[in-house]
Protein backbone atom coordinates (compact mmCIF):
# COMPACT_ATOMS: atom_id res chain seq x y z
CA UNK A 1 0.00 0.00 0.00
CA UNK A 2 1.20 3.47 -0.76
CA UNK A 3 1.98 5.16 2.57
CA UNK A 4 1.82 8.70 1.14
CA UNK A 5 -1.73 8.52 -0.20
CA UNK A 6 -3.43 6.66 2.63
CA UNK A 7 -7.05 5.76 1.75
CA UNK A 8 -9.82 7.61 3.62
CA UNK A 9 -11.46 5.37 6.18
CA UNK A 10 -15.12 4.35 5.91
CA UNK A 11 -15.96 6.00 9.23
CA UNK A 12 -14.52 9.29 8.07
CA UNK A 13 -16.53 9.18 4.87
CA UNK A 14 -19.68 8.50 6.87
CA UNK A 15 -18.98 11.38 9.20
CA UNK A 16 -18.40 13.67 6.24
CA UNK A 17 -21.73 12.66 4.75
CA UNK A 18 -23.57 13.16 8.03
CA UNK A 19 -22.12 16.62 8.55
CA UNK A 20 -22.93 17.70 5.01
CA UNK A 21 -26.49 16.40 5.38
CA UNK A 22 -27.05 18.26 8.65
CA UNK A 23 -25.74 21.51 7.17
CA UNK A 24 -28.08 21.10 4.21
CA UNK A 25 -30.96 20.38 6.55
CA UNK A 26 -30.25 23.50 8.62
CA UNK A 27 -30.25 25.60 5.46
CA UNK A 28 -33.54 24.09 4.34
CA UNK A 29 -35.06 24.73 7.78
CA UNK A 30 -33.99 28.35 7.68
CA UNK A 31 -35.59 28.74 4.27
CA UNK A 32 -38.96 27.34 5.37
CA UNK A 33 -40.23 30.40 7.29
CA UNK A 34 -38.80 32.76 4.69
CA UNK A 35 -40.61 31.05 1.84
CA UNK A 36 -43.80 30.72 3.89
CA UNK A 37 -43.82 34.39 4.85
CA UNK A 38 -43.15 35.61 1.32
CA UNK A 39 -45.59 33.14 -0.19
CA UNK A 40 -48.37 33.94 2.25
CA UNK A 41 -47.89 37.70 1.94
CA UNK A 42 -47.95 37.38 -1.85
CA UNK A 43 -51.05 35.17 -1.82
CA UNK A 44 -53.05 37.34 0.56
CA UNK A 45 -51.66 40.64 -0.69
CA UNK A 46 -52.13 40.15 -4.41
CA UNK A 47 -55.85 39.69 -3.85
CA UNK A 48 -56.08 43.18 -2.42
CA UNK A 49 -54.09 44.84 -5.21
CA UNK A 50 -55.99 46.87 -7.78
CA UNK A 51 -55.64 50.27 -9.38
CA UNK A 52 -58.21 51.55 -6.91
CA UNK A 53 -56.05 50.18 -4.05
CA UNK A 54 -53.05 52.30 -5.06
CA UNK A 55 -54.91 55.42 -6.18
CA UNK A 56 -57.19 56.20 -3.24
CA UNK A 57 -56.70 57.16 0.36
CA UNK A 58 -58.19 55.20 3.24
CA UNK A 59 -61.72 56.58 3.73
CA UNK A 60 -61.97 55.76 7.41
CA UNK A 61 -65.69 55.05 7.04
CA UNK A 62 -67.00 52.06 8.94
CA UNK A 63 -69.36 51.00 6.18
CA UNK A 64 -68.82 51.02 2.45
CA UNK A 65 -65.55 51.45 0.58
CA UNK A 66 -62.53 51.37 2.93
CA UNK A 67 -60.29 53.03 0.32
CA UNK A 68 -56.72 52.21 -0.65
CA UNK A 69 -53.25 53.02 0.59
CA UNK A 70 -52.14 55.98 -1.52
CA UNK A 71 -51.47 58.21 1.48
CA UNK A 72 -49.47 55.47 3.17
CA UNK A 73 -47.22 54.91 0.15
CA UNK A 74 -46.59 58.62 -0.38
CA UNK A 75 -46.08 59.20 3.35
CA UNK A 76 -43.53 56.41 3.60
CA UNK A 77 -41.64 57.68 0.57
CA UNK A 78 -41.61 61.29 1.80
CA UNK A 79 -40.65 60.55 5.38
CA UNK A 80 -37.97 58.04 4.41
CA UNK A 81 -36.60 60.49 1.85
CA UNK A 82 -36.24 63.21 4.47
CA UNK A 83 -34.73 60.74 6.92
CA UNK A 84 -32.22 59.73 4.25
CA UNK A 85 -31.39 63.36 3.52
CA UNK A 86 -30.58 63.78 7.22
CA UNK A 87 -28.81 60.53 8.03
CA UNK A 88 -26.72 59.89 4.92
CA UNK A 89 -24.67 63.13 4.94
CA UNK A 90 -24.20 62.95 8.70
CA UNK A 91 -23.43 59.23 8.69
CA UNK A 92 -20.94 59.47 5.82
CA UNK A 93 -19.43 62.51 7.54
CA UNK A 94 -18.93 60.57 10.76
CA UNK A 95 -17.44 57.67 8.81
CA UNK A 96 -15.05 60.07 7.01
CA UNK A 97 -13.99 61.47 10.35
CA UNK A 98 -13.34 57.98 11.68
CA UNK A 99 -11.35 56.72 8.69
CA UNK A 100 -9.51 59.86 7.56
CA UNK A 101 -8.95 61.89 10.70
CA UNK A 102 -9.82 60.16 13.98
CA UNK A 103 -8.39 56.74 13.07
CA UNK A 104 -7.37 55.12 16.36
CA UNK A 105 -7.57 58.12 18.68
CA UNK A 106 -9.48 57.65 21.93
CA UNK A 107 -12.26 59.92 20.65
CA UNK A 108 -12.68 57.94 17.43
CA UNK A 109 -12.76 54.72 19.43
CA UNK A 110 -15.46 56.17 21.68
CA UNK A 111 -17.51 57.29 18.68
CA UNK A 112 -17.18 53.85 17.09
CA UNK A 113 -18.32 52.24 20.35
CA UNK A 114 -21.39 54.44 20.68
CA UNK A 115 -22.32 53.93 17.04
CA UNK A 116 -22.25 50.18 17.72
CA UNK A 117 -24.42 50.65 20.80
CA UNK A 118 -26.86 52.76 18.77
CA UNK A 119 -27.17 49.96 16.20
CA UNK A 120 -28.60 47.76 18.92
CA UNK A 121 -31.09 50.26 20.34
CA UNK A 122 -34.67 49.05 19.71
CA UNK A 123 -36.45 51.25 17.19
CA UNK A 124 -39.29 52.04 19.59
CA UNK A 125 -36.79 53.80 21.83
CA UNK A 126 -36.04 56.28 19.04
CA UNK A 127 -39.77 56.80 18.58
CA UNK A 128 -40.23 57.47 22.29
CA UNK A 129 -37.22 59.76 22.37
CA UNK A 130 -38.59 61.93 19.57
CA UNK A 131 -42.07 61.77 21.13
CA UNK A 132 -40.73 63.13 24.42
CA UNK A 133 -38.29 65.67 23.02
CA UNK A 134 -40.24 67.02 20.03
CA UNK A 135 -43.89 66.43 20.92
CA UNK A 136 -44.48 66.26 24.68
CA UNK A 137 -42.16 69.21 25.23
CA UNK A 138 -44.72 71.20 23.23
CA UNK A 139 -42.18 73.57 21.70
CA UNK A 140 -42.68 72.57 18.07
CA UNK A 141 -46.28 71.44 17.84
CA UNK A 142 -47.80 67.97 17.78
CA UNK A 143 -47.48 64.98 15.50
CA UNK A 144 -45.76 65.71 12.19
CA UNK A 145 -44.17 63.86 9.31
CA UNK A 146 -40.78 65.49 9.84
CA UNK A 147 -40.69 64.22 13.41
CA UNK A 148 -41.19 60.73 12.06
CA UNK A 149 -38.28 61.40 9.72
CA UNK A 150 -36.11 62.47 12.64
CA UNK A 151 -36.91 59.23 14.48
CA UNK A 152 -36.15 57.20 11.34
CA UNK A 153 -32.91 59.08 10.73
CA UNK A 154 -31.74 58.28 14.27
CA UNK A 155 -32.38 54.65 13.45
CA UNK A 156 -30.55 54.87 10.12
CA UNK A 157 -27.56 56.86 11.34
CA UNK A 158 -25.57 54.01 12.91
CA UNK A 159 -26.32 51.71 9.96
CA UNK A 160 -25.13 54.30 7.45
CA UNK A 161 -22.07 55.16 9.54
CA UNK A 162 -20.96 51.59 10.04
CA UNK A 163 -21.43 50.54 6.42
CA UNK A 164 -19.76 53.73 5.15
CA UNK A 165 -16.77 53.19 7.42
CA UNK A 166 -16.30 49.67 6.12
CA UNK A 167 -16.48 50.87 2.52
CA UNK A 168 -14.10 53.79 3.11
CA UNK A 169 -11.59 51.43 4.71
CA UNK A 170 -11.72 49.38 1.52
CA UNK A 171 -10.35 52.30 -0.49
CA UNK A 172 -6.71 51.30 -0.95
CA UNK A 173 -4.31 53.26 1.20
CA UNK A 174 -2.01 53.62 -1.79
CA UNK A 175 -4.59 55.85 -3.51
CA UNK A 176 -4.65 58.22 -0.55
CA UNK A 177 -0.86 58.24 -0.47
CA UNK A 178 -0.47 58.96 -4.15
CA UNK A 179 -2.95 61.83 -3.92
CA UNK A 180 -1.13 63.29 -0.92
CA UNK A 181 2.22 62.79 -2.66
CA UNK A 182 0.97 64.99 -5.49
CA UNK A 183 0.70 67.83 -3.00
CA UNK A 184 -3.03 67.53 -2.43
CA UNK A 185 -4.53 68.95 0.74
CA UNK A 186 -6.28 66.24 2.75
CA UNK A 187 -9.79 67.56 2.10
CA UNK A 188 -9.25 67.55 -1.66
CA UNK A 189 -7.80 64.05 -1.55
CA UNK A 190 -11.00 62.95 0.22
CA UNK A 191 -13.34 64.80 -2.15
CA UNK A 192 -11.69 63.82 -5.43
CA UNK A 193 -10.20 60.41 -4.75
CA UNK A 194 -11.63 58.70 -1.66
CA UNK A 195 -15.32 59.58 -2.07
CA UNK A 196 -15.60 58.85 -5.82
CA UNK A 197 -13.80 55.53 -5.36
CA UNK A 198 -16.09 54.56 -2.50
CA UNK A 199 -19.30 55.94 -4.06
CA UNK A 200 -21.00 52.72 -5.22
CA UNK A 201 -20.39 51.12 -1.82
CA UNK A 202 -21.66 54.21 0.00
CA UNK A 203 -24.85 54.13 -2.08
CA UNK A 204 -25.34 50.43 -1.36
CA UNK A 205 -24.94 50.90 2.39
CA UNK A 206 -27.31 53.85 2.40
CA UNK A 207 -29.95 51.97 0.39
CA UNK A 208 -29.86 49.11 2.86
CA UNK A 209 -30.44 51.61 5.66
CA UNK A 210 -33.32 53.08 3.64
CA UNK A 211 -34.84 49.63 3.21
CA UNK A 212 -34.57 49.06 6.94
CA UNK A 213 -36.21 52.39 7.77
CA UNK A 214 -39.04 51.93 5.27
CA UNK A 215 -40.30 48.93 7.21
CA UNK A 216 -40.21 50.46 10.69
CA UNK A 217 -43.48 51.04 12.55
CA UNK A 218 -42.37 51.91 16.07
CA UNK A 219 -40.51 55.17 15.35
CA UNK A 220 -43.53 56.50 13.43
CA UNK A 221 -46.38 55.50 15.76
CA UNK A 222 -45.97 58.37 18.21
CA UNK A 223 -44.29 60.83 15.89
CA UNK A 224 -46.03 60.99 12.51
CA UNK A 225 -49.14 59.32 13.96
CA UNK A 226 -52.00 58.06 11.84
CA UNK A 227 -54.06 59.89 9.31
CA UNK A 228 -56.21 58.88 6.36
CA UNK A 229 -55.77 61.61 3.80
CA UNK A 230 -52.75 62.23 1.61
CA UNK A 231 -50.50 64.96 2.94
CA UNK A 232 -47.45 66.19 1.11
CA UNK A 233 -46.68 68.57 3.97
CA UNK A 234 -44.06 67.15 6.30
CA UNK A 235 -45.24 69.62 8.95
CA UNK A 236 -48.51 67.71 9.32
CA UNK A 237 -49.49 64.22 10.43
CA UNK A 238 -48.57 61.67 7.84
CA UNK A 239 -49.64 58.16 6.99
CA UNK A 240 -47.13 55.40 6.33
CA UNK A 241 -47.24 51.79 5.17
CA UNK A 242 -46.11 50.13 8.42
CA UNK A 243 -48.48 52.19 10.54
CA UNK A 244 -51.34 51.57 8.11
CA UNK A 245 -50.68 47.82 8.36
CA UNK A 246 -50.46 48.06 12.13
CA UNK A 247 -53.86 49.74 12.47
CA UNK A 248 -55.64 47.72 9.77
CA UNK A 249 -54.60 44.37 11.20
CA UNK A 250 -56.21 45.28 14.51
CA UNK A 251 -59.61 45.95 12.93
CA UNK A 252 -62.54 43.59 13.16
CA UNK A 253 -63.40 43.86 9.45
CA UNK A 254 -62.02 41.42 6.90
CA UNK A 255 -61.84 44.16 4.27
CA UNK A 256 -59.41 46.14 6.43
CA UNK A 257 -57.32 43.09 7.23
CA UNK A 258 -57.17 42.39 3.49
CA UNK A 259 -55.94 45.95 2.97
CA UNK A 260 -53.21 45.29 5.54
CA UNK A 261 -52.03 42.30 3.48
CA UNK A 262 -52.02 44.38 0.34
CA UNK A 263 -50.03 47.09 2.08
CA UNK A 264 -47.62 44.49 3.46
CA UNK A 265 -46.97 43.12 -0.01
CA UNK A 266 -46.44 46.67 -1.29
CA UNK A 267 -43.87 47.25 1.42
CA UNK A 268 -42.08 43.98 0.69
CA UNK A 269 -41.91 44.83 -3.01
CA UNK A 270 -40.61 48.34 -2.28
CA UNK A 271 -37.85 47.00 -0.04
CA UNK A 272 -37.04 44.27 -2.54
CA UNK A 273 -36.64 46.84 -5.30
CA UNK A 274 -34.33 48.93 -3.12
CA UNK A 275 -32.26 45.86 -2.28
CA UNK A 276 -31.98 44.95 -5.95
CA UNK A 277 -30.74 48.45 -6.77
CA UNK A 278 -28.27 48.19 -3.89
CA UNK A 279 -26.94 44.88 -5.17
CA UNK A 280 -26.63 46.23 -8.67
CA UNK A 281 -24.67 49.23 -7.41
CA UNK A 282 -22.35 47.12 -5.30
CA UNK A 283 -21.64 44.83 -8.22
CA UNK A 284 -20.55 47.86 -10.20
CA UNK A 285 -18.21 48.82 -7.41
CA UNK A 286 -14.52 48.59 -8.18
CA UNK A 287 -13.71 47.74 -4.59
CA UNK A 288 -13.70 44.12 -3.57
Amino acid at each position, binding site marked *: MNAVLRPVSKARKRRDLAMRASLGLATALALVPLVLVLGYVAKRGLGAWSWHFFSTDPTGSFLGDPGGIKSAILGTILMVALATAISVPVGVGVALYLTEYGKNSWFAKAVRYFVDVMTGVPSIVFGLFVFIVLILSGGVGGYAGWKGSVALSLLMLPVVTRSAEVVLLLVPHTLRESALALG*SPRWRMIA*KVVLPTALPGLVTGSLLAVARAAGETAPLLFTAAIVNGTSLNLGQRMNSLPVQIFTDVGQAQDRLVARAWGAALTLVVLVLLLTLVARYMSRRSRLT
Partner: protein
Amino acid sequence: MTVSLSTHAETPLEQKRRFEHGGTTMAAGHRVSLKNLSAWYEDQHAVKGVDLDFEPNKVTAIIGPSGCGKSTLLRCINRMHEEIPGTRVEGEVLLDDQALYSDAVDVTAVRRAIGMVFQKPNPFPTMSIFDNVAAGPRLSGTKGGDLRERVERSLRSAALWDEVKDRLNQPGIGLSGGQQQRLCIARAISVEPEVVLMDEPASALDPASTLRIEELVEELKTRYTIVIVTHNMQQAARASDTTAFMLDGELIEAGPTEKIFTKPDDERTERYVSGKFG
Protein backbone atom coordinates in the same frame (compact mmCIF):
# COMPACT_ATOMS: atom_id res chain seq x y z
CA MET B 1 16.05 79.75 -9.79
CA THR B 2 14.81 78.83 -6.36
CA VAL B 3 11.85 76.73 -5.49
CA SER B 4 9.07 78.46 -3.67
CA LEU B 5 7.92 76.48 -0.65
CA SER B 6 6.13 79.25 1.13
CA THR B 7 2.44 78.87 1.73
CA HIS B 8 1.48 81.83 -0.44
CA ALA B 9 0.37 80.98 -3.94
CA GLU B 10 2.60 81.75 -6.87
CA THR B 11 1.65 84.66 -9.06
CA PRO B 12 0.52 83.64 -12.53
CA LEU B 13 3.70 85.12 -13.98
CA GLU B 14 5.90 83.16 -11.61
CA GLN B 15 3.97 80.07 -12.41
CA LYS B 16 4.13 80.61 -16.13
CA ARG B 17 7.85 81.13 -15.95
CA ARG B 18 8.34 78.03 -13.87
CA PHE B 19 6.02 76.06 -16.08
CA GLU B 20 7.72 77.02 -19.34
CA HIS B 21 11.12 76.68 -17.83
CA GLY B 22 10.48 73.25 -16.42
CA GLY B 23 8.60 72.12 -19.48
CA THR B 24 10.69 73.08 -22.45
CA THR B 25 14.27 73.67 -21.55
CA MET B 26 16.81 71.84 -19.50
CA ALA B 27 16.37 73.23 -16.04
CA ALA B 28 19.11 73.77 -13.57
CA GLY B 29 18.30 70.98 -11.16
CA HIS B 30 17.97 71.14 -7.44
CA ARG B 31 20.01 69.49 -4.77
CA VAL B 32 18.48 67.54 -1.90
CA SER B 33 20.63 67.15 1.21
CA LEU B 34 19.98 64.97 4.24
CA LYS B 35 21.64 66.17 7.43
CA ASN B 36 21.84 63.67 10.26
CA LEU B 37 18.40 62.34 9.33
CA SER B 38 16.74 59.85 11.66
CA ALA B 39 13.30 58.31 11.41
CA TRP B 40 11.27 56.16 13.75
CA TYR B 41 8.17 53.98 13.71
CA GLU B 42 7.03 54.06 17.33
CA ASP B 43 10.20 52.80 19.07
CA GLN B 44 11.80 51.29 16.01
CA HIS B 45 14.72 53.38 14.80
CA ALA B 46 14.42 52.82 11.02
CA VAL B 47 16.84 55.44 9.69
CA LYS B 48 19.87 56.25 11.80
CA GLY B 49 21.58 59.59 11.35
CA VAL B 50 22.03 59.62 7.58
CA ASP B 51 24.04 62.37 5.85
CA LEU B 52 23.63 62.23 2.09
CA ASP B 53 23.43 64.60 -0.90
CA PHE B 54 21.36 63.96 -4.01
CA GLU B 55 23.00 65.80 -6.89
CA PRO B 56 20.96 67.78 -9.43
CA ASN B 57 20.26 66.05 -12.76
CA LYS B 58 21.67 62.82 -11.47
CA VAL B 59 20.01 59.52 -10.65
CA THR B 60 20.86 58.32 -7.18
CA ALA B 61 20.02 54.72 -6.35
CA ILE B 62 19.52 53.58 -2.78
CA ILE B 63 20.16 49.88 -2.38
CA GLY B 64 20.16 47.53 0.57
CA PRO B 65 18.44 44.42 1.88
CA SER B 66 14.75 44.41 2.81
CA GLY B 67 14.03 46.36 5.97
CA CYS B 68 17.24 48.40 5.81
CA GLY B 69 15.27 51.67 5.88
CA LYS B 70 15.72 52.71 2.25
CA SER B 71 11.99 53.26 1.57
CA THR B 72 11.61 55.08 4.88
CA LEU B 73 14.51 57.33 3.96
CA LEU B 74 12.84 58.09 0.63
CA ARG B 75 9.52 58.87 2.30
CA CYS B 76 11.23 61.33 4.63
CA ILE B 77 12.31 63.42 1.65
CA ASN B 78 8.74 64.39 0.63
CA ARG B 79 7.43 64.16 4.19
CA MET B 80 5.21 61.16 3.45
CA HIS B 81 6.74 59.33 6.43
CA GLU B 82 4.70 61.48 8.79
CA GLU B 83 1.44 60.22 7.23
CA ILE B 84 1.84 57.01 9.22
CA PRO B 85 0.61 57.42 12.80
CA GLY B 86 3.29 57.02 15.47
CA THR B 87 6.22 58.04 13.30
CA ARG B 88 8.88 60.65 14.00
CA VAL B 89 11.67 62.36 12.08
CA GLU B 90 14.76 64.14 13.38
CA GLY B 91 17.53 65.94 11.55
CA GLU B 92 17.13 67.97 8.41
CA VAL B 93 16.18 67.61 4.78
CA LEU B 94 17.24 70.53 2.61
CA LEU B 95 16.00 71.35 -0.88
CA ASP B 96 18.79 73.66 -2.07
CA ASP B 97 19.00 75.67 1.15
CA GLN B 98 15.41 75.44 2.37
CA ALA B 99 14.69 73.21 5.35
CA LEU B 100 11.68 71.05 4.46
CA TYR B 101 10.81 70.32 8.08
CA SER B 102 10.76 73.95 9.16
CA ASP B 103 7.51 75.29 10.62
CA ALA B 104 7.22 77.92 7.89
CA VAL B 105 7.04 75.28 5.17
CA ASP B 106 3.70 73.88 4.07
CA VAL B 107 3.74 70.14 3.62
CA THR B 108 1.69 70.28 0.41
CA ALA B 109 4.26 72.66 -1.09
CA VAL B 110 7.00 70.15 -0.27
CA ARG B 111 5.10 67.43 -2.09
CA ARG B 112 4.42 69.62 -5.09
CA ALA B 113 8.14 70.26 -5.39
CA ILE B 114 9.11 66.63 -4.74
CA GLY B 115 7.03 64.10 -6.67
CA MET B 116 6.80 60.41 -5.92
CA VAL B 117 6.23 57.20 -7.85
CA PHE B 118 5.20 54.18 -5.82
CA GLN B 119 6.12 50.52 -5.96
CA LYS B 120 2.84 49.30 -7.37
CA PRO B 121 1.20 51.20 -10.22
CA ASN B 122 -1.77 52.95 -8.59
CA PRO B 123 -3.81 54.99 -11.06
CA PHE B 124 -6.99 56.44 -9.58
CA PRO B 125 -9.58 53.76 -10.46
CA THR B 126 -12.47 56.14 -11.04
CA MET B 127 -10.58 58.32 -13.48
CA SER B 128 -9.82 58.17 -17.21
CA ILE B 129 -6.27 58.23 -18.54
CA PHE B 130 -6.60 61.97 -19.12
CA ASP B 131 -8.06 62.65 -15.68
CA ASN B 132 -5.38 60.57 -13.99
CA VAL B 133 -2.71 62.89 -15.36
CA ALA B 134 -4.86 65.99 -14.87
CA ALA B 135 -5.30 64.90 -11.25
CA GLY B 136 -1.78 66.16 -10.64
CA PRO B 137 -2.53 69.84 -11.23
CA ARG B 138 -6.13 69.47 -10.04
CA LEU B 139 -5.31 67.87 -6.71
CA SER B 140 -2.31 70.03 -5.99
CA GLY B 141 -4.28 73.14 -6.89
CA THR B 142 -1.78 74.20 -9.55
CA LYS B 143 -3.49 76.60 -11.90
CA GLY B 144 -2.37 78.30 -15.04
CA GLY B 145 -1.35 76.88 -18.37
CA ASP B 146 -3.54 74.85 -20.64
CA LEU B 147 -4.53 71.64 -18.87
CA ARG B 148 -4.79 69.65 -22.10
CA GLU B 149 -1.37 70.76 -23.18
CA ARG B 150 0.06 69.98 -19.78
CA VAL B 151 -1.43 66.48 -19.83
CA GLU B 152 -0.03 65.84 -23.28
CA ARG B 153 3.42 67.06 -22.30
CA SER B 154 3.42 64.91 -19.16
CA LEU B 155 2.34 61.84 -21.12
CA ARG B 156 5.01 62.51 -23.73
CA SER B 157 7.63 62.88 -21.02
CA ALA B 158 6.53 59.55 -19.59
CA ALA B 159 6.82 57.96 -23.06
CA LEU B 160 3.16 56.99 -23.00
CA TRP B 161 1.52 59.55 -25.30
CA ASP B 162 1.70 57.57 -28.52
CA GLU B 163 0.14 54.53 -26.90
CA VAL B 164 -2.81 56.32 -25.31
CA LYS B 165 -3.48 59.46 -27.34
CA ASP B 166 -6.51 57.90 -29.06
CA ARG B 167 -8.13 56.64 -25.88
CA LEU B 168 -7.58 59.35 -23.32
CA ASN B 169 -11.14 58.95 -22.05
CA GLN B 170 -10.79 55.29 -21.21
CA PRO B 171 -10.16 54.20 -17.62
CA GLY B 172 -6.57 54.37 -16.44
CA ILE B 173 -6.82 50.94 -14.83
CA GLY B 174 -7.50 49.41 -18.25
CA LEU B 175 -3.83 49.84 -19.20
CA SER B 176 -1.18 47.16 -18.76
CA GLY B 177 0.95 47.20 -15.62
CA GLY B 178 3.91 48.85 -17.32
CA GLN B 179 1.68 51.45 -18.95
CA GLN B 180 -0.04 52.10 -15.62
CA GLN B 181 3.31 52.78 -14.01
CA ARG B 182 4.25 55.20 -16.80
CA LEU B 183 0.84 56.81 -16.30
CA CYS B 184 1.73 57.28 -12.64
CA ILE B 185 5.05 58.82 -13.66
CA ALA B 186 3.16 61.17 -15.99
CA ARG B 187 0.85 62.03 -13.10
CA ALA B 188 3.80 62.74 -10.82
CA ILE B 189 5.54 65.03 -13.31
CA SER B 190 2.32 66.81 -14.33
CA VAL B 191 2.73 68.83 -11.13
CA GLU B 192 6.12 70.01 -12.49
CA PRO B 193 8.15 68.92 -9.48
CA GLU B 194 11.87 69.56 -9.11
CA VAL B 195 12.73 66.19 -7.66
CA VAL B 196 11.22 62.78 -8.43
CA LEU B 197 11.37 59.99 -5.87
CA MET B 198 10.80 56.43 -7.05
CA ASP B 199 10.14 53.62 -4.61
CA GLU B 200 11.04 50.39 -6.41
CA PRO B 201 9.11 51.62 -9.45
CA ALA B 202 9.72 48.52 -11.55
CA SER B 203 9.55 45.75 -8.99
CA ALA B 204 5.97 44.84 -9.94
CA LEU B 205 6.68 44.90 -13.69
CA ASP B 206 7.89 42.44 -16.31
CA PRO B 207 11.44 42.76 -17.73
CA ALA B 208 10.41 44.65 -20.88
CA SER B 209 8.37 47.22 -18.91
CA THR B 210 11.23 47.48 -16.42
CA LEU B 211 13.61 48.36 -19.22
CA ARG B 212 11.25 51.05 -20.50
CA ILE B 213 11.02 52.58 -17.04
CA GLU B 214 14.82 52.59 -16.79
CA GLU B 215 15.14 54.33 -20.17
CA LEU B 216 12.58 56.82 -18.99
CA VAL B 217 14.55 57.50 -15.81
CA GLU B 218 17.61 58.18 -17.96
CA GLU B 219 15.61 60.77 -19.94
CA LEU B 220 13.94 62.35 -16.94
CA LYS B 221 17.20 63.10 -15.19
CA THR B 222 17.90 65.87 -17.69
CA ARG B 223 15.13 67.79 -15.96
CA TYR B 224 14.80 66.39 -12.48
CA THR B 225 16.85 65.23 -9.57
CA ILE B 226 15.97 61.56 -9.26
CA VAL B 227 16.20 59.28 -6.27
CA ILE B 228 15.33 55.67 -6.89
CA VAL B 229 15.03 52.95 -4.27
CA THR B 230 15.61 49.48 -5.61
CA HIS B 231 16.33 45.99 -4.39
CA ASN B 232 17.48 45.07 -7.87
CA MET B 233 21.23 45.59 -8.05
CA GLN B 234 21.40 45.23 -11.82
CA GLN B 235 18.89 48.03 -12.06
CA ALA B 236 20.92 50.25 -9.76
CA ALA B 237 24.03 49.48 -11.80
CA ARG B 238 22.24 50.20 -15.11
CA ALA B 239 20.17 53.21 -14.25
CA SER B 240 22.00 55.29 -11.65
CA ASP B 241 24.93 57.67 -11.51
CA THR B 242 25.38 57.48 -7.79
CA THR B 243 24.60 54.61 -5.46
CA ALA B 244 24.06 54.64 -1.72
CA PHE B 245 24.13 51.40 0.25
CA MET B 246 22.11 51.11 3.45
CA LEU B 247 22.13 48.43 6.11
CA ASP B 248 20.08 48.31 9.32
CA GLY B 249 19.05 51.95 8.98
CA GLU B 250 22.59 53.23 8.52
CA LEU B 251 24.16 54.62 5.39
CA ILE B 252 27.19 52.40 4.89
CA GLU B 253 28.62 53.96 1.80
CA ALA B 254 27.69 56.28 -1.08
CA GLY B 255 29.61 57.09 -4.22
CA PRO B 256 29.71 56.81 -8.01
CA THR B 257 27.77 53.73 -9.05
CA GLU B 258 30.71 52.17 -10.86
CA LYS B 259 32.89 52.47 -7.80
CA ILE B 260 30.25 51.03 -5.46
CA PHE B 261 29.83 48.01 -7.70
CA THR B 262 33.48 47.40 -8.50
CA LYS B 263 35.69 48.56 -5.67
CA PRO B 264 33.63 49.72 -2.68
CA ASP B 265 35.43 50.98 0.42
CA ASP B 266 33.38 49.02 2.90
CA GLU B 267 33.60 45.27 3.18
CA ARG B 268 29.81 44.99 3.84
CA THR B 269 29.05 46.83 0.58
CA GLU B 270 31.39 44.47 -1.22
CA ARG B 271 29.63 41.46 0.25
CA TYR B 272 26.17 42.85 -0.57
CA VAL B 273 26.83 43.86 -4.19
CA SER B 274 28.50 40.52 -4.85
CA GLY B 275 25.36 38.77 -3.63
CA LYS B 276 26.82 37.22 -0.48
CA PHE B 277 23.88 38.37 1.68
CA GLY B 278 20.59 40.27 1.48
